[in-house]
């Protein structure tokens, strides 16, 4: 395609002009409301067969809803769905699979203590004898592993797999059921960069085999790297569909948000003061006795952001958890503003001004069936501000919730809506709002912008920097090296549970990458060994 074929927002609903391919999926006038929220407004979308079609949009724009409709999880109030030119009704995920649509869920729907093989055939045994299905699946698995680089050991127990491997199992599951179209909703949010690259290689091969891929992501460079076509959603509407080659990141960003977005962080130099947080020879062993944090010492001073770079699973999560009081160290000390806080529980630590923005918002940071108000006090339920004698002061809590929802632009701005009903990015904004607005003296941050749209990333970054500039200390863990480099004033590199180096944020990415891989260092070998030990 050439740039002259660009479809600009105003004629986004026009039929595609490239007739060489036939549409795999066509959505015509799809409309969906949840009460007062108009999640999808009269959506028209054509997805060509054999392409990777990206969908981007702000948090709450309606992307997941649209995919859920396609996957038979929700029913559209209006509109039609055509698959290979045939009108279909999809009222359950079973029907979706029958029509060749497979979905890779973000919360993986795998049985943790089943093997890969058992998970793949689960619900699609087809035979009375599981053994027969297993043979069939095993053969297919071998073939798929070869064709698409989808390597996972068929007999490995799912709970021992890395997130990236679990995702591959999800893809295998869909392919095993005969999926022609694969929907992936923010698949890279939980992956390491290497795993994401691997995923993209798989997707590219699937496309080359004639499969169709629908990819939702907030990372525009992924859109540029892998998609053939990109569609932009805004507040429930499909505002543009472009061939990817004809657009730039800036154009997409602007179409998403409706204004120019600052794609890089704007921050002044730091002015570090006294040491607020210090770890000395901190060591953590996990339940199996494996050392996950290994003799770690560092300091974070007032007015600086210290970033921890590292390939996921090298002890960063455990480091944050031990600092936050969720798990206990087996050796070493932690001090907060000079006071020993080793072994204190999260409630005590919060009282002393140490806040924690957890990386897993759905399992740790939120209670999904609770309303916005109840989630806004999670961890601060003892605050006298929210109490009236023995009782919780729901009026005061609702007022707080409403005001932080407004200042963080949580959509919909309904503080009584249950957390489960907010879109992924808006859930993240709720957690950020709760922790940052408390103005803690030390903030531990895990993956602050995972699943968050570019506009909100800009906003959250600004808030973190404002916190720093007020003289607070921030320890940041993120899978996004970009984010670490642009936010941090100092970077610590973790590998195999140890801090293997420290560098300035200007250090080239490749150099940090080498340190992350633990190259030239014994720590790297150790982490290798551990990873291998975990996979039978």
């Amino acid at each position: 395609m050439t740039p002259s074929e660009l479809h600009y927002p105003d004629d986004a609903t026009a039929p595609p002009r490239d007739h060489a391919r036939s549409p795999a999926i066509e959505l015509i006038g799809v409309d969906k409301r949840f009460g007062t929220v108009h999640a999808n407004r009269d959506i028209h979308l054509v997805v060509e067969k054999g392409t990777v079609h990206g969908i981007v949009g702000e948090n709450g724009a309606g992307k997941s809803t649209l995919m859920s409709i396609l996957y038979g999880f929700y029913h559209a109030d209006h509109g039609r769905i055509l698959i290979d030119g045939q009108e279909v009704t999809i009222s359950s995920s079973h029907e979706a699979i029958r029509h060749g649509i497979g979905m890779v869920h973000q919360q993986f729907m795998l049985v943790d203590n089943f093997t890969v093989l058992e998970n793949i055939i689960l619900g699609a045994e087809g035979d009375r004898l599981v053994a027969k299905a297993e043979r069939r699946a095993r053969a297919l698995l071998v073939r798929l592993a070869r064709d698409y680089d989808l390597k996972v050991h068929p007999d490995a127990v799912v709970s021992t797999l890395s997130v990236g491997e679990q995702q591959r199992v999800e893809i295998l599951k869909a392919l095993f059921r005969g999926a022609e179209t694969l929907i992936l909703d923010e698949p890279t949010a939980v992956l390491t960069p290497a795993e994401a690259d691997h995923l993209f290689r798989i997707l590219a091969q699937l496309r080359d085999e004639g499969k169709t891929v629908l990819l939702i992501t907030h990372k525009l460079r992924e859109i540029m790297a892998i998609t053939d076509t990109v569609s932009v959603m805004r507040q429930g509407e499909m505002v543009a569909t472009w061939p990817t080659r004809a657009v730039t990141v800036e154009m997409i960003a602007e179409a998403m948000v409706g204004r120019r977005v600052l794609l890089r962080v704007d921050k002044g130099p730091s002015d570090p003061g006294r040491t607020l947080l210090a770890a000395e020879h901190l060591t953590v062993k996990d339940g199996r006795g494996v050392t996950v944090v290994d003799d770690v010492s560092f300091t974070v001073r007032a007015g600086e952001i210290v970033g921890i770079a590292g390939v996921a699973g090298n002890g960063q999560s455990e480091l944050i958890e031990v600092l936050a009081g969720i798990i206990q160290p087996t050796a070493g000390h932690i001090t907060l503003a000079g006071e020993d806080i080793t072994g204190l529980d999260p409630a005590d630590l919060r009282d002393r001004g140490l806040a924690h923005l957890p990386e897993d918002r759905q399992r740790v940071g939120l209670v999904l069936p609770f309303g916005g108000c109840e989630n806004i006090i999670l961890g601060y339920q003892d605050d006298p501000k929210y109490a009236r004698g023995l009782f919780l002061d729901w009026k005061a809590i609702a007022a707080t919730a409403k005001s932080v929802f407004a200042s963080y632009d949580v959509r919909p701005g309904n503080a009584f809506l249950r957390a489960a009903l907010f879109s992924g990015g808006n859930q993240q904004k709720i957690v950020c709002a709760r922790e940052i607005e408390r103005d803690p003296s030390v903030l531990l941050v895990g993956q602050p912008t995972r699943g968050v749209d570019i506009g909100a990333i800009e906003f959250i970054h600004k808030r973190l920097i404002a916190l720093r500039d007020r003289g607070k200390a921030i320890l940041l863990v993120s899978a996004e090296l970009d984010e670490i480099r642009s936010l941090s004033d100092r970077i610590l590199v973790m590998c195999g549970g140890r801090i293997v180096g420290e560098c300035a944020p200007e250090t080239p990415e490749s150099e940090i990458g080498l340190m992350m891989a633990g190259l030239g260092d014994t720590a790297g070998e150790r982490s290798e060994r551990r990873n291998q030990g975990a996979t039978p």
Partner: protein
Amino acid sequence: MSLARRELPPFVDYVVLPAVNVITAFAAAGLVVLAIGENPIEVVKIMIVGALGNAENIGYTLYYTTNFIFTGLSVAVAYHAGLFNIGPEGQSTVAGIGVALVCLAFDGAPWWLVLPFAVAASVIFGAGWALIPAWLQARRGSHIVITTIMFNFLAATLIVYLLVNVMGKAGSMATETRMLTDATRLPFFATLLKPFGIDLGQSPVNPSFLIAIVASVAVWLLVWHTRLGYEIRTVGTNSQAAVYAGIDPARIIIIAMLISGGLSGLLAVNEVMAVQGRLLIDVAQGAGFVGIAVALMGRSHPLGIALAAFLFGILYQGGAELGFDIPKITRDMIVVIQALVILFAGALGNMYRPMLERIFARRPAARAHEAEA
């Protein structure tokens, strides 16, 4: 995008679903009645008149309701902490011992003086019986369902031992304590209200019904308006988030079970201090298990529990009347009918959920199609 998002409108969830369940239960019970050659309509009529036909019958119904509210609340509080307390039967049995000890010790003193102590004893003994299973769950991970069932058996054995060897009536083989004096025994409303010209006949409903109402309000306040209730719900819904929030799940599990056991214990005030006027071997008479169905049906909300308890009260009182009026319907038959209601309204409470989900999710789409046609 998670599966949890699929849900019913509140009206369907809280009204239509329970209604459909109850109707199914009655339909199934009706078939049983038909099978033994009786007229179901007639049976329903007798049950309703028997339960609500006059002041005395209503009094009996409310007496049953009282017990079911206590055990229903008990199960509900534990449930909010993510625990399935199967032990109200045993907890109220042991509470019966406590109430009997207090009442017998103060026997002869006016009831209004003894009542606060009896209430305290019932709560303490009920909570105490829940403490060990709670501790085992919280600190040792022993499953509360198993331990509370075991403690029901232990309570049953304990009370037999005590009534035979320690607390039994002197010079009698009967497994019961001596009667309380009239002054100490909690009077029935029938007695209390007679001077005002209200005739409740022989019905045993008594001030513990008011205690049940107060307990319902208290549980509602506790669960949704106190910090402790918030912590209980957080632990029950997402214990990882609870740890993150600085809440100790083990502590909350123990506290919630103590409250739960205490609520079950209150049943003994109704039974021992008022209705029986002495300690008998079977304090709860199955009300502990009915409480599980009541809590399920009432969706662990005090208002729902009060309504479900009332429904089961009607069923028990109406069922008793049925035995008198239709000899063919034996005591066992009544148990079958009650069991059907428990089965459909309680245990299979979500049987119709997928169907309702489909109906209420499809409707808008269907309308859209009609509009296009």
